[in-house]
């Protein structure tokens, strides 16, 4: 018998976090933006012990001092493409405002820490969303192009071909093998 599992990663992380804090007897507060507020008088020893426990599950504690800006850029771009409205927006301006750094700084940092640029990553994320949408039936290319800020269907098709080397029709054919 083969079993598969359905799980909610966010719920899992919250539960791991809650249990770790409970075991360590630490009070915490989850703020509206999803960050966690820990007591001010938390000792370094205790912080390092919960940090070690959380790392067993691949969870890293991030403070203002050790911000992973590249990860924040990636998360923000994915959030905008998947949940926000990116029609007629300039992602460079939004990133600068959201993260509190100039765009040239963010851009240089991203390129130095990854194999690509912010602009390219933004295109890749949009093309990923296109793939998911075309795999769903009844999603017209015109609507996809409009929602994902491509100037036209040919522009969308060209970008898709440029990124994947395949036409949307070929992609669907191979993906639905």
């Amino acid at each position, binding site marked *: 018998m083969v079993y598969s599992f359905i799980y909610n990663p966010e719920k899992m992380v919250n539960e791991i976090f809650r249990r770790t804090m409970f075991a360590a007897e630490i009070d915490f507060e989850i703020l509206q933006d999803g960050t966690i507020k820990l007591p001010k008088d938390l000792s370094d020893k205790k912080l390092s012990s919960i940090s070690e426990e959380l790392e067993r599950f691949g969870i890293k504690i991030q403070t203002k001092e050790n911000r992973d800006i590249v990860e924040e850029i*990636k998360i923000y771009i*994915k959030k905008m493409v998947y949940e926000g409205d990116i029609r007629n927006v300039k992602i460079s301006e939004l990133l600068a405002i959201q993260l509190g750094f100039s765009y040239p700084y963010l851009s240089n940092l991203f390129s130095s*820490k*990854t*194999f*690509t640029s912010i602009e*390219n*990553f933004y295109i*890749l*994320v949009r093309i*990923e969303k296109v*793939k*998911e949408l075309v*795999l769903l039936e009844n999603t017209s290319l015109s609507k996809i192009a409009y929602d994902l800020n491509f100037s036209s269907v040919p522009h969308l098709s060209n970008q898709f071909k440029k*990124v*994947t*080397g*395949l036409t949307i029709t*070929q*992609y669907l054919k*191979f*993906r639905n*093998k």
Partner: protein
Amino acid sequence: MDKLKILLVDDDEDDRQFFADALEGIDLNTDLHQLENGKSCIEFLLGDIANKPDLVFLDLNMPIMNGFECLEVIRRTPYLKDLLVAIYSTSSSKRDIEDTFEKGANIYIKKPSSFSELKKSLKQVVKMNWAYHLNDFKKENFLLKI
């Protein structure tokens, strides 16, 4: 940035050297291991968990076990089936390209005739692959033809 672990499986020694030089030339953070046929590839992959690469380049025409057979074994082995596989072949036949994508390849890259073209292609593959390697995107949606 972690090194991207690449495995190249190709029976042609010159082609392997050509590939290694091109990879070194594009100056991306990669670590290359080379093997000569599909059988040694499967043995290597199953030999040690530390051997599991981020991306495998498979030639199609090889002795003992060819690229098609090797790809089939990878896709039906639970421990290996999520590996990103790039077919790296001299063939540009539509049938070979379709066959490999249908058998579960993620990337099809035709061996270029010039060194500069190979560097350009490898750079494109690594750049695209990076986001999948970090689980930014769903691996099953990754198809790329160069």
